[in-house]
């Protein structure tokens, strides 16, 4: 158990490549994997690592996050000492209530950081999904004497058209000390990408943030990590498990489809590291007499009497008789009426597709329909 670390998750980042999926919510609150939100994974990583003090910074559209996380009960984080702290923005004499960047946000929650009794801070973003424990990275951080340790993995995927918060690590000859960092590079020289997990001593974090803030620094990666890459001892910790970066509609779609392949995304199903989420008390999924379902991940509360193949069905989805759904992601409460046909489509919560409609996207261009729309 790592009693000597606490977590700070920044969920404020916007991302235009997520299109309609983040119209009314933060990336952290985007539904993923049939019954989860993106933030559930990193939050469960913290809990499964024995970390019981977690601050979650929200801004803009945080209603759905607040609603989802509540008191932190489902994560066992409704504790008397420590627990889950929601840190929404508030207006002060030097803050208008909207953060310019994460340094701004860190500065305004410094009270929480100072009051935390643990020595190490685990900083996390909220668009990277993986299922691990932070025990090993904390141990390395402690033993190596690093000022900052960044969790990374090897990821050859690169799409310059949809680059978002892409931090790459270049190592010295020892293979562990970071020699250089690249931030959204046009021509990346490294496939080692940050998993948005940064470990840093609390006191150093305080100094760096306050110093940078006073000079107008905005972005933690750009204005602190990149600035100090040569005068701080920054190290990498390699993670070889499954990592999903939800940084565009396309990556959202392709990572969703990877969930159908346990050999690929099996880490996310590790029974020793359960992923916690808000419980909805749905009944079991129900299959009708005409159901024809192949290669599908399906949550509770669904009713399927049609054909569904290679798809993800969230809680409470209905697929009526004669409807055909292929290669699609149907979020909570979606209804597909009789005879409708879907291929390569992402339907946000509560969308209804009326009888007989045909919607077809393509692998590199899945169609997205925003929340509660009727097609």
């Amino acid at each position: 158990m790592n009693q000597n670390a606490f977590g700070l998750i920044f969920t404020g980042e916007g991302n235009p490549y997520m299109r309609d999926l983040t119209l009314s919510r933060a990336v952290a609150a985007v539904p993923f994997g049939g019954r989860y939100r993106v933030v559930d994974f990193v939050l469960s990583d913290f809990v499964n690592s024995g970390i019981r003090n977690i601050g979650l910074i929200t801004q803009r559209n945080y209603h759905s996050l607040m609603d989802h996380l509540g008191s932190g009960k489902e994560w066992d984080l409704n504790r008397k000492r420590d627990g889950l702290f929601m840190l929404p923005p508030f207006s002060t004499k030097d803050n208008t209530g909207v953060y310019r960047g994460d340094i701004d946000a860190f500065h305004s929650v410094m009270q929480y950081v100072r009051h935390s009794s643990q020595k190490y801070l685990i900083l996390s973003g909220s668009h990277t999904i993986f299922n691990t424990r932070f025990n090993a990275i904390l141990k390395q951080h402690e033993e190596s004497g690093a000022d900052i340790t960044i969790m990374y993995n090897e990821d050859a995927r690169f799409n310059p058209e949809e680059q978002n918060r892409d931090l790459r690590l270049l190592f010295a000859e020892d293979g562990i000390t970071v020699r250089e960092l690249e931030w959204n590079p046009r021509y990346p020289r490294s496939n080692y990408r940050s998993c948005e997990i940064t470990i840093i001593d609390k006191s150093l974090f305080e100094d760096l943030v306050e110093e940078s803030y006073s000079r107008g620094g905005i972005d933690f990666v750009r204005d602190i990590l990149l600035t100090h890459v040569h005068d701080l001892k920054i190290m990498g910790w390699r993670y070889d498990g499954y990592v999903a970066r939800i940084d565009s509609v396309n990556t959202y779609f392709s990572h969703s489809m990877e969930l159908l392949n346990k050999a690929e995304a099996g880490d996310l199903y590790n029974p020793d590291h359960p992923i916690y989420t808000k419980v909805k008390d749905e009944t079991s999924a129900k299959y009708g007499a005409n159901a024809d379902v192949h290669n599908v991940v399906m949550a509770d509360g669904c009713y399927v009497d049609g054909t569904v193949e290679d798809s993800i069905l969230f809680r409470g989805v209905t697929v009526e008789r004669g409807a055909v759904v292929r290669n699609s992601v149907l979020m909570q409460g979606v209804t597909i009426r009789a005879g409708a046909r879907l291929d390569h489509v992402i339907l946000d919560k509560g969308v209804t597709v009326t009888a007989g409609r045909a919607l077809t996207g393509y692998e590199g261009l899945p169609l997205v329909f925003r929340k509660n729309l009727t097609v």
Partner: protein
Amino acid sequence: MMKKRIVCMLLAGGQGSRLGVLTSSMAKPAVPFGGKFRIIDFPLSNCVNSEIDTVGVLTQYRPLALNSYLGTGQHWDLDRSYGGVFVLPPYMTEHDGRWYSGTANAIWQNRSFVDQYDPDYVLILSGDHIYKMNYTSMLRYHVEYEAAATIAVLKVPMEEAHRFGIMNTDEDGRIVSFEEKPKQPKSNNASMGIYIFNWKLLRAYMERDDADETSENDFGKNIIPAMLNAGEKMVAYPFEGYWKDVGTIQSLWEANMDMLGEDPILDLNDPSWRIYTRNPVLAPHYVGKNAKVRDSLVTEGCTVKGDVKHTVLFCGSAVDEDTKVRDSVVFPYAKIGKGCVVHKAIIGENAQIGDNVRLGEEPKEGEVIDNRLTGDIVLIGNDVTVPSGAVIPRGAVVTQETLCQFVNGGANA
């Protein structure tokens, strides 16, 4: 302390011996039901949905399993600062201590639990029925009729009335007589084992009953007849809807099957009356490329690669490739291997069925099966490992002990 208007006492007592090996390690109310639930979730959820927030659960059989299942009650929204859910096993005092000798005695021994809330009414439930009921409507009825006791009744088919406690009423719904399992029933108003009493009055009757050495300290046998004889005003509250005693293997199987079909007689997917349960933390279920699933219930943590029809799969269960499952109930975390054929079976929690196993076969000639508890249903006990290639006839009860008579080709045991 603030007073509570009504407190619920849930009789979860029984070992449920008619459920055989399913209750060898847990009390009947903890038996799984309907894909996600345990039997006790039904009375508890009914309480919460009826805005009754103080529930005592009376048990003397393996209280640990029930205790750890209920926890703080948070899954039923019963983690209250005043009230909530409490497991009440028998206990010792400085004078004496004894097992619960009957249903009424269980309440009597815990009178101080009820007294601390100073309630006007007490609701008595039994923990082995599947139904959705608004107890507050029943309480309203009780108050309106100014009754001393109200007993919920259900119209059952006349030809089955002899299996129930029958309440004979006058035209106003007042109970005039009560017969336990009558040979010649006068009416078909079956008692559902759901009572509301005025607490002070019940307390007085229980005190008298406790002093009576000959009494069995039972509600049906002693308390209710005594109140009727004394001329107390007792009324029958008519209930309409699904209600099933799941105290036998046959009825447990039937009640699970009642959830299937296009317009099921038991529909639990009802947002206005949810049944709450302790949710396992499991991923959504996965249906494989060559799977075939029809007319079934499947829930979180399941993996289905075979052909499943008219079946209820519970959380974490798995059906492997080339396996056919029909008309069955597969309890949590049970796994069925490749190439199996399963007909009309209840497979216990965490049971492991090997490859090419056949369950529910025609018995071989001369094979004698003890099916007194099971009828034509195959019952695989909790945690039993059935080795590959085994052939189990219908009606058989398979435990780790009886397993050898089915796998070594021996039908003579």
